[in-house]
Structures are given as C-alpha cells and as structure tokens.
C-alpha cells in the first residue's frame, strides 16, 4: 500500500509499541490515569471523573515469570499475562484500577490485583450478565455507586454535564472508528488488519479527544492510498476477545489474506453502537453496556425461540459478514475462558449456517504457540483458497 503522508500511522506505531506512553507522560505533567480491565468498564465515567482511561493489556511476547506466585494458572492466560506485566512495573503510572465483573477469572482475582499491585484506588464494578428492565435498573445503581466512589477518591463531584460531555466524546470516537472500518469494505481494503489492530490498541491508552483525532487523521491518510495489487485478497473476519497484539494477524496477512473485519473486544464490539443521549446519562451508559456490547459475558434471551436467541447473540456477525464481504472466519478463544468457550459450538454452527467456513483455535496468549498456530492457519487458508479455485 502506498500513501503520501503517514504521520497518523507513525504515531499509531509509537503508541502501539510503547503502550501507555502518552498516559505516562501526562501523569508526569500532573494528569491522572485510571486502568481498567475488559470491554465493559464504562470509560465515559472514568473520563468524566478527570482520568485518562487506560485499558490493561498484556504482551504475548513477554514470558510470564512473576505472576505465578500469586495468581493461579487456571485463570484466563491473558489476565495472568497482564497481571505479570503490572508486577513488572508496566502500569506503575496508574492512579487506580477498575475491575468489572466480566467473568470468574476477572472477578475472583480482584483481591489478588489489589494486594499484589497496590494503587491508591481500586473498584470492583458488579456488572450484571443480563439485560432487561431489572438488570438495567440495577446496573444504573451500580454505576451511581461507582461515581460516588470516584467522587470520594478525587474529592470532586462528577456532574451530569461532564458525563453527557464524555458520552458525546466517546460517541464521536465510535463514529470515527466506524468511518475508518468502512474503508475496509472495498475489494482492496485501504487499511490492513495489522495497521487496524495497532490503532485499536493505541487508542486504548489515549484521552478520548486525542483518540478520535488520531482515528480521523489515519482515515484521511489511508483514503489517499492507491492500491497497486490487482489481486483481491481472501477476506477474513477475526472473532475473539482480548486480541491486542499483531501476532495472529501477521500470520494471516503474510499468507496474502487480509483481515477486513473483527469482532473482538478491543475492536468493533465497542464501536458499532452509540450511547443514547438520555436525560439521565448514567442510564444511557448502563443501557449501552448491557444491551449493545456483544460479549458472551452477557446472556441474551428475550423469551423467543432458540433461533431468535441466536440472532440476538450473533446477528451482528451476519451483518459484518455481509457488509464486509467476509470469505472466512477465524475464531480465537483463550484457554480457561468459560464465557467464550461454552459458545464455541453455537458460534461455529451459526457462522457455518451462513455458508462461511470457520477456523477455530484455542490459544494461550503467548507467542510461544505462534509457530503451531502459523502452520494450522496457513493450512486452513491454503485449503480454502484451493477450494475457491
């Protein structure tokens, strides 16, 4: 791919390689940063309280060495890796961490984080796993308790105006992301999967306004690209949770295929719906996370048939496959992950019912497994390419 001005992408590269560098620099300048785990932490509230939200990520290239003495190996390998990074000082600039109730691995290790990686502020956010009116009312209360706790910590009130402003700012980021995702729709996508994942990760440790500006900048840059290759790549959608590294996508794209869409928790899961601007912004935030973020940690059943429920759970995949003209899906689930793991047969059969092949792989969030993964993925893509011929 050729482009005339890659300043935005160069910045993405910096932020991706040195994750959190901006938040760290801002900390030195007297600003504050709040870490959080998973996709269901309401960054809008963290932002409204005056913090730069920083999503805790791991590094599959970093061997876990310190975490084993205080966290069990039976938990999510991503979480273990991220905790190991925290123990090694990667997140020492944070003022606190918000840990939502996303799954057993995360919720049951809250105290482990708190004891072994002490920070001035910790909060456990009891996110329910259900939607519907009682769950929404409950989650709204949970968020209000969270707001109160942040107010106590900072000594400053969080006004409705601040919350409404944060909601608008994140909605703007979501719109900017969707506009960029659109550039992956053409036969020759204007941005590669590797570039996209780097951007998706980079913005997770930036102030929201900077994130939106960066996404807009990259969008403008890649719009000016001319694609020289006449060959249409095999179009892949990547499905999984905390995929926050280029490793897997490099394996896919080195074969000539291209990741044109994702359903991952640092990616489209967070960008394909907006928060309604309700009179009570907290209610709007609660509604967004419970009803619009498609994660297996949320149980979706409105009393309809099994097939109707499948549409509630996976209907967005159908839309993505169609809109992004996806040829095949790669489903990556980490070991020890109950929420995703129990969905695997249903996910595979749903996607296959749409006439698209799925390659399912269980992994351990470690680059040590990448050569095994490489051989398997290459074989899958080769077989699929031959079938298409």
């Amino acid at each position, binding site marked *: 791919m050729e482009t005339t001005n890659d300043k935005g992408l160069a910045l993405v590269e910096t932020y991706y390689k040195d994750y959190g560098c901006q938040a760290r620099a801002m900390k030195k300048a007297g600003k504050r940063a709040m870490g959080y785990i998973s996709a269901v932490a309401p960054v809008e509230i963290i932002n409204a309280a005056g913090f730069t939200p920083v999503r805790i990520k791991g590094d599959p290239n970093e061997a876990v060495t310190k975490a084993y003495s205080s966290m*069990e190996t039976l*938990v999510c390998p991503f979480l273990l890796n991220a905790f190991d990074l925290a123990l090694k000082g990667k997140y020492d600039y944070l003022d606190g961490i918000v840990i939502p109730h996303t799954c057993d691995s995360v919720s049951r*290790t809250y105290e482990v984080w708190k004891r072994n990686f002490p920070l001035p502020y910790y909060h456990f956010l*009891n996110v329910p*796993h259900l939607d519907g009116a009682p769950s929404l*009312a409950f989650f709204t209360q949970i968020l209000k308790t969270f707001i109160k706790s942040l107010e106590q910590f900072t000594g400053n009130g969080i006004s409705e105006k601040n919350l409404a402003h944060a909601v608008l700012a994140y909605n703007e980021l979501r719109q900017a992301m969707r506009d960029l995702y659109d550039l992956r729709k053409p036969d020759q996508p204007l941005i590669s999967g590797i570039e996209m994942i780097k951007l998706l990760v980079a913005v997770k440790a930036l102030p929201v306004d900077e994130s939106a500006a960066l996404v807009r900048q990259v969008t403008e840059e890649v719009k000016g690209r001319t694609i020289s290759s006449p060959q249409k790549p095999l179009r892949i959608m990547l499905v999984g949770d905390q995929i926050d590294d280029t490793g897997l996508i490099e394996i896919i794209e080195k074969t000539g295929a291209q990741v044109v869409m994702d359903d991952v928790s640092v990616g489209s899961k967070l960008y394909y719906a907006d928060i309604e601007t309700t009179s009570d912004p907290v209610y709007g935030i609660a509604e967004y996370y419970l009803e619009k973020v498609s994660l297996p940690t949320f*149980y979706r059943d409105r009393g309809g048939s099994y097939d109707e429920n499948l549409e509630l759970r996976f209907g967005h995949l159908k839309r993505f496959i169609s809109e992004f003209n996806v040829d095949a899906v790669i489903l990556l689930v980490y070991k020890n992950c*109950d929420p995703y793991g*129990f969905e*695997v047969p249903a996910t595979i059969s749903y996607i296959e019912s749409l006439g698209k092949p799925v390659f399912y792989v269980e992994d351990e969030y470690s680059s040590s497994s990448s050569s095994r993964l490489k051989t398997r993925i290459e074989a899958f893509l080769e077989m699929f390419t031959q079938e298409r011929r």
Partner: protein
Amino acid sequence: MAEERKQRMTATAAAAKIPKMVRANFTANLKAKEEGRPVAFSFIVNCYDEILRAMDIVPAWAESYSGICAAKRDAGKYLEKAESQNFSRSLCTYATCGLGFEYWRNELGGEMPPDAPWGGIARPDFILGTGQMLCDPRYKWPQAAQHYMQDVPAYIGGFYWPPYDENMDQREVENYYLKYAVDELKGAIAFIEKQTQKKMDWNKLEEITDLVDRTWDMFIDAYELRKARPTPMDTGDAMNTMVPLAFMLGTQEAYDFYKDLYDELKGRIDKKEGVAEDEKYRLLWGAGLPPWFALSDFQYFNNKGAVFPAERTYREAERIDRLDLPKLSDPLERIALRWMRYWTHWYDAARKRKGSIPEVERLIEYIEDYQIDGVVFHKAFSCRTWHSGILLQAQILKEVYREIPILVLEGDIVDISSYNEGATHLRIDAFIEVLENLKNKC
C-alpha cells in the same frame, strides 16, 4: 470403560445413606418425566429451592449428575463427546460432562445414552440458571445445553451480592441488590407459571421458606458437633452429607436428615467415637471442590491420624440468627436477603482485622472453633470460581493470623486424567511429616 472405584469407608450412618438418596433423586426425575410432570435442570446453590418445591417442579441437578459420573469413574466418555464438539478441556468439567451427555442424547434422537450411570438424567422441560449465583457456567452451561435441546427454554435470573470493600459498609447498597434479586425471583416464578400453566401457591412458598430456615439451623447445629475431640465426622463424610442441603433443600426429608445426623453425632460424642482410631491432627478443608473420583484420599488422611472436623466447601448455610435478618413478610425478600447476608456476613470481621478478607476470616473462625492444626486446599484446574484466589487466601492467612501448615493439592472435580494417586499420597505424607514435626516442637 469405567475404572473400578475404591470404596471410601464412611464414619457415620448418615453418610452411608446418601448414595441411596442421590439415586432416589435421579429416579424421581426420570419417573416424573415418564409421568409428564415438569422436570427442570437446576444447579447447586441456585436460590430457587423454595420456588421449585412450592411449584412441584422436580429438579434434575446437573452438577450432581456429573459428580456421579466422576465418582463412578465413568465421566471420560462424556468429556470426550464434549471435546468432539470443540468444548475445551479447560472448561468447567461438571458442565462439559453434562454437555457431552446432552450432545450424545441429541445424536441418539433423544434416547438416553447407553450405560448411563444410574439410568441417566431426565431431559428437562426447562432450565433454571443464574447470573451469577456462584459462577459463569450457571448461565453459560444452560445456553450451551440448549444447542442440543433447542426446544427447552431457560430462565436465567440475576442474583448478586455486594462485593467486599474495606472502606464501605455493604449495608449501604444492600437495598438495591435486594430489589434486583427479588425482581429476578419474581421473573423465575412468572417463567415457571408460563411453562407449567400453574400458579404459585404463596402460602406453600412461605411454609417452605420457614422450613429452609429451620433446615439451615439444624445443619449448622449438627455440623458444630464436629468441634468435639475426637471429631465424630469429617469432611470425607461431609462431601456426602451435603446432599440434602444442596439438592433437597425445602423438603422435610432434608430437615429430618440433619436432625438424625445431629442425634447420631451426639451419640458418637457420648461414646467418644472418632473418625480416626487415634486422632492426631485436625485439619480444615480450606477451599476447593473435591476430586469426586478420589474421595478415598480422605481415608488416606484418616489412616495417618489426620481428620477434617470442618470444611468451607458445601457449608452453604449459616445459623439464621447470625445473619441479623430483619422481620420480612415477603418470602421472596426472605430468600434473597438470607442468601445475600450469607455471602456478606463475614465482611464486618474482615474490616476489623487489618489486611484480612472475608474468605480468610471464615478460615480463621473455623481454625479457632474446631482447633485446627493445618489447612488443606484443593485446586481443581477446570473451575475458576472456587479455585482462583486460593494462593492469596493462604498468603493472607499466614500474614494476618499465624504460621499454619498449608497443603495445596491439585487435580479436578470430574476429569480423572488430572489425578495421580501416588503423587497425591506422597504430598500428603510430606504434609503429615510437617504436622508431626510441629507437634513435636510444641
């Protein structure tokens, strides 16, 4: 092919009665199915016990069936079936055992898989789960099971309790937790009424709620007799005697069982009958679900003079007066608040001891009340909810309380491939040696 299982000797007559009772539970759900009475899959500590019994729903306990398959060392075939469907071996093996079973049953067009232990488990008319009374499989297992039983509806109710925070009194937020739980219990009743076309009998629900209160009290009264020296019953038996509390709560039979157990333990104490011939070491089963395929390991401990007068696992009840419950007339509020206070009533103690957490306070209470010499934890690789945080508990216990010998065993609940009897026994031997050395020093 199922491997021959070593029989574990029970110390009490009560524990010896349990296999028949468990079998009767499964006969009951199979018979109900034949007769067209409603059968529901339900899960241990699911908070629907009173509702199920008041609405004459026959529960088919999903984890219990997986436990039976494991205890008979006959779960492998179901785990393999689940694996063939791409369920990871690292997932909860109670669930994967059950899902393998349902996949197989679906393959057979709804027929019971051949040679199912104890005749199998009935295909349910509906499923009752929770998010998140205990763990993720409470709502993911029902959803995954529906893949093989697409006509079977499920109700998942939200049931949470306030998290521990040393800087906040949980009672400040209890009201909205309670309201949510009650709304969700009402949702469960509406769902069951729709499935069965039968209305809730609210008077009966109230009577059963009273009965459950009495059963919790009787259970604790009986278990507290284990404080005696020598202890008249240990964890090896408790892994059986939990059955009426976990799977028959809300029935008179469950209450009567604990009354009989109470009487039996009193008798054994009077006659100074202990679990071990020569009780030398008193241990606490600190946390962890047991390896159902290797309960005879408790016997191994007993043979070395080590007994377990108390355990945290399956002690899912508390004396009602200890929960400081207000007078409530709505049975649903009573059910919800009883559970909520059960989970949170160690919080105050934790706040008083600097550096402690509720789980450790509970350990300390049992260590003191039951005169414990050492703590044994079991880490089951496939279960995150019970077994994450064990290392932390062990660390905090030593920090805030005292140096106490701790043994962490590793294995699983259902998957026998994780188990190495020789290695386990060697670790137990080494632990006993530590206890012995400590005793000699004192």
